[in-house]
């Protein structure tokens, strides 16, 4: 353990703040998909770098936790590395890159490929929590629409997609209806991940700048909005992973040289590495 523990409270935030956030989390879990306002704190990182997710993680962490942090599926990007380092230093918790070993995973824009299990918590970083914002800029109005379950507008957005592009072109932050009640923005995960929103794990969403927390409790029904004649499809690039050969994982397109050569590789680095290790073994 580093000296950090003498300088910071456990997991950086003071206990009062964590209690405030936990109350918001409990309310969010009690009303799946509902956006609970909370008094977001200034964090030692800029907005857009996961301040909402970090606060939720801080409120959930206990010393026994093993933390994993991913950014677009990868454990080794700047954002993931720095947040992991932040909690290693301020909470002294163990960290891991293995999905299966983690008890708490903070993520930006992905759900891990390895199926989550009971007892795990997945914390999402959310830039814009309001799924109706695209068509209705007034917060007072969107809140009323949620309250009255007035969601025609959400389908107008999908209608516009089809009218303009011939198909629902929304490929990330694809809106879902949670537990048959609230329409929710699952954060900018690819729509490929939407089916994984129905999970045994607890899923918590934190939006720092917008000061909102929402949640999907384990085993909650999550339906991606669509039309009968344009059904939802969890699509991904039609290639196998160039490194591990997986055909069931979400892929990133990587440009490999100046002449436009490219390859498709698993966006989930842990999943890819695990498969390659197995193959090698």
């Amino acid at each position: 353990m580093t000296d950090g523990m003498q300088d910071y409270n456990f997991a950086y935030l003071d206990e009062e703040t964590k209690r405030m956030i936990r109350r918001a989390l409990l309310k969010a879990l009690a009303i799946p998909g509902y956006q609970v306002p909370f008094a977001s704190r200034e964090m030692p990182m800029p907005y857009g770098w996961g301040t909402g997710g970090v606060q939720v993680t801080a409120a959930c962490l206990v010393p026994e936790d093993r933390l994993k942090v991913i950014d677009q599926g990868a454990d080794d990007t700047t954002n993931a590395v720095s947040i992991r380092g932040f909690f290693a230093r301020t909470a002294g918790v163990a960290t891991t890159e293995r999905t299966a070993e983690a008890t708490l995973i903070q993520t930006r824009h992905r759900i891990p490929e390895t199926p989550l299990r009971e007892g795990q918590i997945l914390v999402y970083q959310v830039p814009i929590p309001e799924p109706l914002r695209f068509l209705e800029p007034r917060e007072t109005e969107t809140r009323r629409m949620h309250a009255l379950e007035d969601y025609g507008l959400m389908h107008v957005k999908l209608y516009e997609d089809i009218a303009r592009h011939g198909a629902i072109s929304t490929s990330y932050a694809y809106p879902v209806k949670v537990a048959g009640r609230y329409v929710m923005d699952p954060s900018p995960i690819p729509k490929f991940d939407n089916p994984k929103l129905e999970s045994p794990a607890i899923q918590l969403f934190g939006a720092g700048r917008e000061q909102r927390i929402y949640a999907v409790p384990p085993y909650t029904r999550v339906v991606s909005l669509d039309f009968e004649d344009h059904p939802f499809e969890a699509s991904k690039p039609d290639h196998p992973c160039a490194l591990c050969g997986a055909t069931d994982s979400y892929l990133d397109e990587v440009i490999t040289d100046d002449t436009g050569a490219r390859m498709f590789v698993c966006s989930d680095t842990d999943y890819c590495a695990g498969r390659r290790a197995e193959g090698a073994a």
Partner: protein
Amino acid sequence: MSPLLQVEGVTKRYGARIGCEGVGFDLWPGEVMGIVGESGSGKSTLLGCLAGHLTPDTGRILYDAGAGSGAQDVTAMPEAARRRLLRTDWAFVHQNPRDGLRMNVSAGGNVGERLMAVGARNYGAIRARAGDWLGRVEIDGARMDDRPSAFSGGMQQRLQIARNLVSGPRLVFMDEPTGGLDVSVQARLLDLLRGLVRDMGLSAVIVTHDLAVVRLLADRLMVMKSGRVVETGLTDQVLDDPQHPYSQLLVSSVLQV
């Protein structure tokens, strides 16, 4: 048969100033009622109260949704029920189409919204109905995917009407529906509205200061002054044989209609 709408003693004040006071009338299925009066006479306030945009201080607005449910006081309805009414059984045509349209959504999406709001989930069927309605308001189906910002004022107003009528409402509120349009465009719109009102058996409340509009559209007329109703009756009777001093002044003040 019973009245579709029963309005009783509706009063709305803005502080000490009277918006409208003690207004009451019955509107029967298929009837079109005009409300005329000069600016500030309270006609728009009254329309706002009737359509659920404003909450009256006192009075009742009973609406009979049919199906044997009996008349319900709209002012006492839970907001969810009132909103459902507003997007299914009722419609509101604003004077300025920008207030009644989503300007960043295509014409088809604008018309389809009410259908989707009540659960339509078949894209092809929604589009077919939107196309049908664009035709009924004389907008070329080829413009279905254009945004209303690319439309002329008359087209925008017709689009607003299609957007409102697609859900097959029974009661339509219109606030100066022909205001701000060229005279030639007005005639076309009036003709369209008249046909739709007759074919769909619509009831309507139309607020306007244009007596020619009510002469051609409204069965009955209500004349308002300083927030109060000063005269009611058959449209042609009120216009041709006005009884109240203010109605006489109003009728004699305009060029022959």
